[in-house]
């Protein structure tokens, strides 16, 4: 966002070595790499839009692509790019509207870091803009359906052996991870201490362990003219309880101000649920989803605390990170209200 528009995202040497590599990968007579430009959303990954013209080979013709590589300040919880591409392929093969991965470079020898190319979807991802459009029931339904298809992928599916299986219960894994992310703050902020305690005491029955996106929310899918075109940002994918993604999608903190539209600020819960149940054949566990919504707020609060610490510690001075720290209050407020609803508005 702060990079001047004139800065070239790739050096001439990098373009040359990318072109040679792509020509070999595509089995092409020639490849032209053109119109390289930076895309937004690069907190964890670097995303470049690239227009390819491929002569010969299996994918001959013009190809609108995105090149995605890791950023220097990778988040420990995120997958590396080669694994992310494998998840993308598994989802794509299962009929999920994930961008089709095209070529994967695992060595880092071509551009200095591993990367992959995928087909570029059209449309808009920005959450604060998507929630301003009139609600389209079919969009919430379709987002539910896509998640249902993803959740048909179960442990043991081919090509995903690298995804760690939870060793404890998934609840313990989440609570331990977020307590760890919060560090000292877990013992200084009573609302966060209360959420950790409440989630532990009120844990619901767990359901099926499924391939979960783990950042399935408004802002991480693309919409063109009211129609879903792609689910993006797969770097946090892993095995989890099926209701976690649903709680994350519906949590109040991801509605971008459209509080009454309980499905991600873009639609109704009923439409989203109906799409999910139709595609997955699995019933929504309403109590579990409500509980996962509390967990969603705790997770987002823990991420916000980490971001604030990156600024406060001096490691990465940034006004945006500083302001994220003050957002913890709003997340806490939504979280307490959700607990209140779960406890019958006592």
């Amino acid at each position, binding site marked *: *966002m702060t990079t001047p*528009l004139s800065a070239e995202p790739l050096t001439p040497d990098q373009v040359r070595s990318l072109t040679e590599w792509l020509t070999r990968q595509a089995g092409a007579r020639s490849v032209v790499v053109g119109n390289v430009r930076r895309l937004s959303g690069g907190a964890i990954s670097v995303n470049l839009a690239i227009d390819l013209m491929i002569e010969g080979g299996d994918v001959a013709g013009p190809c609108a692509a995105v090149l995605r590589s890791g950023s220097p300040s990778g988040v420990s919880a995120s997958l590396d790019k080669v694994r992310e591409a494998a998840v993308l392929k598994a989802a794509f093969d299962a009929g999920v509207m994930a961008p089709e991965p095209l070529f994967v470079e695992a060595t880092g020898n071509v551009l200095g870091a591993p990367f992959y190319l995928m087909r570029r979807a059209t449309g808009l991802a920005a959450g604060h803009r998507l929630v301003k459009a009139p609600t389209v029931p079919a969009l919430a339904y379709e987002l539910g359906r896509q998640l249902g298809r993803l959740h048909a992928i179960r442990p043991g599916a081919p090509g995903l052996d690298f995804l760690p299986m939870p060793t404890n219960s998934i609840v313990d894994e989440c609570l331990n991870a977020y307590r760890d992310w919060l560090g000292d703050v*877990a*013992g*200084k*902020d*009573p*609302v966060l*201490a*209360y959420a*950790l*305690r*409440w989630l532990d*005491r009120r844990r619901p029955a767990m359901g099926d362990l499924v391939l979960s996106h783990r950042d399935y929310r408004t802002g991480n899918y693309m919409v063109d003219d009211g129609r879903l075109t792609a689910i993006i940002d797969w770097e946090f994918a892993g095995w989890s309880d099926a209701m976690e993604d649903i709680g994350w999608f519906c949590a109040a903190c991801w509605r971008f101000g459209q509080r009454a539209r309980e499905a991600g600020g873009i639609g109704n819960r009923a439409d989203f649920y109906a799409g999910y149940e139709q595609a997955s054949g699995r019933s929504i566990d309403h109590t579990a989803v409500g509980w996962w919504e509390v967990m969603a707020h705790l997770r987002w609060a823990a991420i916000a605390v980490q971001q604030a610490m990156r600024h406060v510690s001096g490691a990465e001075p940034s*006004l*945006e990170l*500083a*302001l994220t720290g*003050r*957002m913890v*209050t*709003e997340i*806490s*407020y939504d979280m*307490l*209200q959700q*607990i*209140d609803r779960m*406890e019958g508005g*006592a």
Partner: protein
Amino acid sequence: MTPELPDAGNLLETALNSLRTDLLPYLPDHARYTGLMVANALSIALRDLRAEPARAEMEAAMTRLIGRNDATTLCRAIQAGRFDAPDHDSALRLNLLLITKARLSINNPKALG
């Protein structure tokens, strides 16, 4: 100590007004987001400076729960299960909501609805 004129709150408020009136409307698109973040940061700092009543509410809520204004002690009591019983749990939640609302009056009053 000699009182400074204007005080810190007045300086912040005046700077914020200049930013909003004389700078923000003229910023090019690429700088607008940063300009809005600066305005937000100054607004929070200004409300924080003038938050005596909000701090008094937080202190009162904390004192109702554990007899003194000490967040670390409250956290320890929560972790030890001292508020697990249903009536203690609802009293805790009620007071945590009051504390959070008081903090929101500083950090993001719009979220109070």
